[in-house]
């Protein structure tokens, strides 16, 4: 009979197994990112060589693609626009979804169940149809061709999901806490503000980061409502100025994506724990 393994050996073996299991996932998730990273620094002739190892450089790496990005396109403006839009949308989403989530979770409204279901239904209406009447709304508000148009339109797809998310978070806050607060003399609003919100801060932060991310994904609305070069957000500006006719500026395209996506990924990871908590509560126990 083999001698019993030591605890340390067991740990190492466990770790190795886990890493082995994780490797395919990390490769799948990260390989395209690595590829984008390398392409962003490659010189253009380097891209069109099939006989050479494509995952590293053959001509020396260059910052030229980034130069094109920042000096020959409006990338700087696009980043500012994207961040501004996302910040405003996150704010609007917070102001509407947090109260709505609380109302649906805690105030025992009649028909709350159906309203909750209605939240899903809004996602069934495809954007390719919505953008036409919304175009009218945007024009009537005088916001056409400014990035404010997107600030008005994006909440239509962030509010439903964030409401549902906040509903979940609020359901994990036990009723007794609020009742205790009210016994102590708080009104309903005060109870909400002073007791429930601080506890739900993780959920709120999660909603913020989610609204932020969703705002950065859109392409159609940005295209339909914002034409001027310096008003566009990144997802619209990049295909516009870096794909001309049938010529693709691959290096700059990749660089543009990474500069915008990676910081958000870092932020996202930071709030992941909270996100998990919120989804849990969404079903309510």
């Amino acid at each position, binding site marked *: 009979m083999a001698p019993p393994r030591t605890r340390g050996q067991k740990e190492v073996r466990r770790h190795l197994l886990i890493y082995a299991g994780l490797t395919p996932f990390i490769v799948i998730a990260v390989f395209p990112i690595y590829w984008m990273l390398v392409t962003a620094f490659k010189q*253009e*002739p380097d*891209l*069109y*060589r*099939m006989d050479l190892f494509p995952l590293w450089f053959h001509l020396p790496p260059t910052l030229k693609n980034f130069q094109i990005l920042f000096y*020959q396109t409006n990338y700087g*403006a696009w980043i*500012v*626009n994207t961040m501004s839009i996302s910040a405003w949308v996150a704010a609007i989403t917070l102001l509407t979804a947090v109260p709505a989530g609380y109302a649906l979770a805690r105030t025992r409204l009649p028909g709350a169940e159906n309203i909750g279901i209605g939240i899903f239904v809004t996602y069934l209406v495809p954007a390719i149809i919505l*953008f*036409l*009447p919304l*175009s*009218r709304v*945007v*024009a*009537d508000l*005088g*916001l*056409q*061709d*400014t*990035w*404010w148009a997107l600030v008005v339109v994006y909440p239509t797809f962030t509010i439903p999901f964030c409401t549902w998310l906040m509903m979940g978070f609020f359901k994990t806050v036990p009723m007794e806490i609020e009742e205790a607060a009210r016994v102590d003399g708080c009104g309903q609003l005060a109870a909400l503000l002073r007791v429930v919100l601080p506890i739900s801060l993780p959920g709120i932060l999660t909603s913020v980061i989610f609204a932020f991310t969703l705002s950065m994904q859109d392409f*159609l609305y940005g*295209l*339909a*409502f914002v*034409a*001027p*070069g*310096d*008003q566009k957000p990144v997802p619209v500006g990049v*295909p*516009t*100025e870096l*794909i*001309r*006719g*049938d*010529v*693709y500026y691959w290096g700059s395209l990749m660089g543009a994506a990474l500069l915008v996506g990676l910081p958000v990924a870092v932020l996202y990871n930071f709030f992941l724990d909270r996100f998990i908590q919120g989804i849990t509560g969404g079903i309510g126990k």
Partner: protein
Amino acid sequence: MSEPRSVLIDDAAVSRRGFLRVTGAGVAGGSLLAMLDARQAPAQVRGTSLRILQWSHFIPAYDAWFDKFAKEWGDKNGVKVRVDHIPHLELPARMAAEFAAGAGHDIIHNGSSILTRLYHKNLVDITDIYDQIGRKSGGWIPAAKSLVEVDGRYYGIPMFYILLPMLWRKDLFDQAGLKPPDTWELARVAARTLKPKGHPTGIQFSQCADANLNWRSLLFSFGGAEADPSGENILVDSKEMREALRFAKALFDEGMTAEVFSWDDASDNRYLASGVASWIHDAISAYRTTEDTNPPVFKNTFIGMEPAGPGGKRVSVAAANVYMIWKFSKNQQAAKEFLVHVMDNDREGMVQSRGYNMPYLNANYAKPMPVIGTDPKMQILQDFPKIVAFYGYPGPFTTPIQEVVNLFVLPDTFTKVARGEPIEDAVKWCVGEYRRIFARHKRA
């Protein structure tokens, strides 16, 4: 970022009706033609703004020049001009959005997908400047009319078109002792000979704009047709269509690889730039890209005439580019003025596009043409205007034809055949689709 916004809010604040009244009075004053002749913007135009939407030209320098050009005109005439760019494939979506909004740009551009006839009820009737411009520059080429004409009135200005000539590797041809690809048969022989040597050819068998253009060039050069000159009768069910399909299948089997099924508009550019392609049938954007990324290949790449079909016919289907003015524009006068100004400087535009933009005006064909007239390799392009055609040939570019184009019916037909479907089945399907689409538009 706040400055453009304040301009827009000012615009929105001014009553639309009020403005139309003023501009209407100006036009009714009857001095418009005189003003256009004198090239002086009328007093009403000063202090107004003009917004133009067009594509991102594949040559960034052209966009830079155009934006500056527009601004200079604006400064001279006291008009605040702004040029916006979006990808040309998204112009239809943007047009739909502006139509739905009842607001947007003053001048809008269409490339490839020409929706002028579709939207004509919402576009300004610019017959006056169309005639004006034509008169000044020796008349419009015959193919220009059908793009923008509805019931004798004109609703757009064709600005330029983009040719898709033959781009072939002279070094590879010479090495193999092949004649230049002056006919489709020669091109096919070349592909057949060079494919085993690692140099196949490729034409998109997929749903993209170039496929719509390339396969029509082949079909029409073989004597085929899409619709008759009235535009009412579908002519795709023909002997010539079947011959063209047979040829395409043979060309694919002998001279291409299966990757052409995945190609988009840019794939043949890359094929040439990578040094693999023996020849491609593509716009000179490919030629220019190769110049930048693969100089040795570029040195050996030559531009060839549209190959002739079996009957000796040559037809080159080109991508049209048209500018229109929205009816809801608050500055129709300035818009018209500007379009005239652009067409007056057509030759300059050709230079700035490095020979990419081909003119619609006869006067601009006087040799030597800018850029292409002086570059020895590009001189052949000067002979193309005689054989250029657009979607719907020999009929006009009508709305049902536009839908046929947008649904990629013809490329799909060729693709089916290349994939091995019997030619009769493919033709039957194709005719069925055409009939269905034409019928729908007649119903509407």
